[in-house]
């Protein structure tokens, strides 16, 4: 007779399996193999911080009052007693000072939001720089870009809800961006705000969008995102025994379950620690929102900072066409440039496949140095964003480092054009130098620092040969040749679309021509075992 515990478990399992046939699915998937690497945890952090957001956010909704109804505050935060404010702001004060654990949950929620966005960006960088977005994973890349966009909007709406002076200023700016859209902008703004700014409806409206609409969409997209990862199997870094056709790693049960499940608790624990010791978004310091007040050093959260920085550095351009105003100083930094950035990002897998002519499936990741152009484009884009982000904090930087606002503004205005191309060139050079270093390492081994004097007096340094595993990791990548310039047939007649082909051949040459040939088996053999 089996022990009681096993009998109960058995009958539960039987009940479920007879109804949904779970055993077949689970038998296969509990042994599913996941490659292991620290950088694969970045997406996990994003997922877990989203779950933390759902949990802490639900707690907050029990007390938050999404209303702009004015009232006189009479809670336990003495400095604001007797002040007129919205119910949204007052209830946020109540959560912070009168509900036990309320302050903790608010801070956990805000920290988790910052972490959510940071983890998504880090995950995106990992996926980009290793080429994990290549076929067959382009669709998941696009989903990821969508999730990042939604995350940014969701974060902005979230910190706007308390209706404090800082967030109200952010909403005011968002309204101005809406209003700046040609033709429909004024209508869009009036529909969104139920009339002129600020009106009485935007807090209840963004509340619904923040707690229901966007989280619902994010949850749906994450589900598809993960299902695709599951179905397409995870990518892996190149290394001994790893090929395009296999996947090397640990089975889901027990190792991956314990590690991933444990990691959820670690992320939650760290967020809770931050919420316990690190004050964030102290809305009671800012005071309630009113359109006539403002505080110096008004800053958005970091993931909006680059956008604000672009707006700040924009030249004062406005034009009038047939008695209509077009605010280039808002449209360019607020909508056009971000639009180009995010569209370009979403389309990148297709742009790269077109430019390199590589349309095959890729399950092995690239080491960033082995795709110098992609890496350089990535660093260039990051440089652009970071310069914008720095300008988004120009007032804080000015006061902390004793610069004038004008100096920082002009420095970033110039840098935003100069630094990205410069970083492109430098990154590409660094990648090629690293390729060269790899080649040297494989062919000549590692410098050991041990000097030996030969009988005839010559000093040589002992080089230690790499292990076959290390050598393989450094040489297993493919080196594609540029697409030949096609289009001219034997009789010298140009085919249709030849210009397009020529451009493409040119681009592909730019991407693929300059690379350091990886060592071949023959070269390695000829050089022997590293004594030279």
């Amino acid at each position: 007779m089996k022990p009681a515990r096993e009998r109960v478990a058995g009958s539960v399992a039987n009940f479920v399996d007879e109804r949904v046939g779970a055993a077949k699915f689970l038998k296969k998937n509990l042994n599913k193999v996941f490659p292991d690497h620290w950088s694969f945890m970045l997406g996990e952090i994003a997922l877990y911080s989203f779950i933390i957001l759902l949990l802490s956010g639900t707690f907050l909704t029990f007390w938050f009052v999404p209303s702009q109804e004015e009232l006189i505050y009479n809670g336990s935060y003495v400095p604001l007693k007797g002040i007129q404010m919205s119910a949204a702001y007052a209830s946020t004060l109540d959560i912070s000072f009168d509900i036990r654990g309320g302050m903790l949950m608010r801070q956990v929620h805000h920290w988790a939001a910052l972490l959510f966005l940071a983890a998504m960006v880090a995950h995106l960088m990992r996926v980009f720089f290793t080429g994990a977005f290549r076929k067959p994973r382009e669709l998941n890349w696009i989903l990821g870009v969508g999730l990042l966009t939604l995350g940014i909007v969701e974060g902005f709406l979230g910190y706007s809800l308390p209706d404090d002076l800082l967030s109200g200023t952010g909403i005011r700016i968002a309204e101005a961006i809406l209003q700046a859209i040609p033709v429909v902008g004024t209508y869009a703004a009036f529909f969104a705000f139920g009339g002129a700014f600020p009106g009485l409806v935007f807090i209840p409206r963004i509340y619904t969008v923040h707690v229901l609409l966007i989280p619902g969409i994010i949850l749906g997209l994450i589900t598809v995102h993960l299902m695709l990862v599951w179905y397409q199997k995870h990518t892996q870094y190149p290394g001994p025994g790893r090929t395009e056709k296999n996947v090397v790693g640990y089975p889901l049960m027990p190792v991956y379950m314990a590690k991933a499940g444990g990691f959820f608790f670690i992320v939650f624990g760290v967020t809770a620690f931050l919420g316990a010791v690190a004050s964030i978004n102290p809305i009671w310091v800012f005071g309630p929102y009113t359109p006539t007040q403002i505080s110096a050093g008004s800053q958005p959260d970091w993931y909006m900072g680059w956008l604000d920085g672009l707006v700040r550095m924009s030249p004062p351009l406005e034009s009038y066409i047939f008695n209509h105003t077009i605010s280039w100083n808002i449209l360019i930094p607020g909508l056009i440039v971000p639009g180009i950035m995010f569209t370009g990002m979403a389309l990148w897998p297709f742009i790269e496949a077109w430019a390199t002519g590589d349309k095959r499936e890729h399950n092995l990741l690239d080491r960033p140095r082995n795709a110098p152009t992609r890496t350089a484009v990535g660093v260039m884009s990051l440089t652009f964003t970071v310069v914008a982000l720095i300008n988004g904090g120009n007032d804080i930087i000015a006061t902390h480092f004793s610069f004038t606002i004008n100096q920082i503004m002009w420095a970033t205005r110039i840098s935003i054009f100069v630094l990205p191309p410069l970083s492109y060139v430098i990154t590409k050079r660094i990648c090629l130098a690293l390729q060269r270093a790899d080649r040297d390492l494989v062919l000549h081994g590692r410098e050991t620092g041990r000097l030996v004097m030969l009988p005839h007096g010559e000093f040589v340094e002992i080089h230690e040969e790499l292990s076959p595993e290390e050598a393989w990791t450094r040489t297993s990548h493919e080196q594609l040749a540029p697409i030949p310039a096609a289009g001219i047939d034997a009789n010298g007649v140009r085919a249709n679309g030849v210009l397009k082909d020529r451009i493409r051949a040119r681009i592909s040459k730019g991407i693929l021509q300059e690379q350091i040939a990886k060592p071949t088996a023959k070269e390695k053999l000829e050089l022997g075992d590293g004594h030279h």
Partner: protein
Amino acid sequence: MSNTELEPLKDPGLPAHAHRKADHDEVAAKRAERQVSILFLLSAAGTILFIYSYIWIAQDIYVYLPVIGTTNAHQLFLGLGLAFSLFFIGAGAVHWAKTLMPDQEVIAQRHEMRSSDEDRAGFIATVKENGASAGLGRRTLIKRTLGLSLGLVGLSPLLLLRDLGPLPSDDLTKTSWAEGVHLVTDPGNRRLRPEDLEIGAVAHVLPEMKHPEHRKLDDIAKDALLLIRIRPEEFRLDAEKLSWTYQGIIAFSKICSHMGCAVALYEQQTKHLLCPCHQSTFDVPTGAKVIFGPAARPLPQLAIKVNAEGFLVAAAPFNQPVGPSFWERRK
């Protein structure tokens, strides 16, 4: 060049599995087990701290901690309890996985995502066959009317959104300012005389209302003014704009012409107004001309005068909309 010359290095294959100490040493395994259990016990202690803090630490006790500063004890220990209770579950699980669970990497095969040609052909055949059985190809009338009705049904939700807000009308171009409206302080609602402002002084001003307690934020967002007094000879204004000032007192809309923030920072020495949102800087003596930053237009100036009783009042409404630009705004 022959092919063999370009041959890459050989893949040495997956390295042999290296055993950990706990895999063969029972003492090490026992030690690892104890470590994992201690981590789980720390988590339990965290939960106890959490419960204790929630119930027994009063909410009005503040403690001083280095680096963090003065902080609320209730919130701090509640948070630390939660942090420990969660973190150590995770730490225990990961330590367990790393020391005691099998660490042998296994190899699984991948399959190309593309379906086989057979499956593809079968799929197309099914679609065609089932489509044909529904008469999709033949019954064009049905297809077209369905397309029409589906297209139209999409309009309904769009239409439903119409009442989200009123049409703009003159909301963006009109403010409460009109000839004779008193300038009152914000806050305080006191009428102002020119003598109230010394040279170099700034006043934050709103239009007088019968029931100031009913003043709406919508109105404040358009009506807010800055009243600044400088020496009259310092103005560099044309005759019309100069006539809108009174003995060195000039009134500007406080709502930034860039994105609508309150332009509330006045630098007395340089006579510059600065918007803290995007650092647009306006020069007061020249009529709030933009001298730096992204704003494209000066702050609108309100014409003011002194009435028979000696109070400052508006001489006319704003001659242009205040606040950020919008499509319908005329030059």
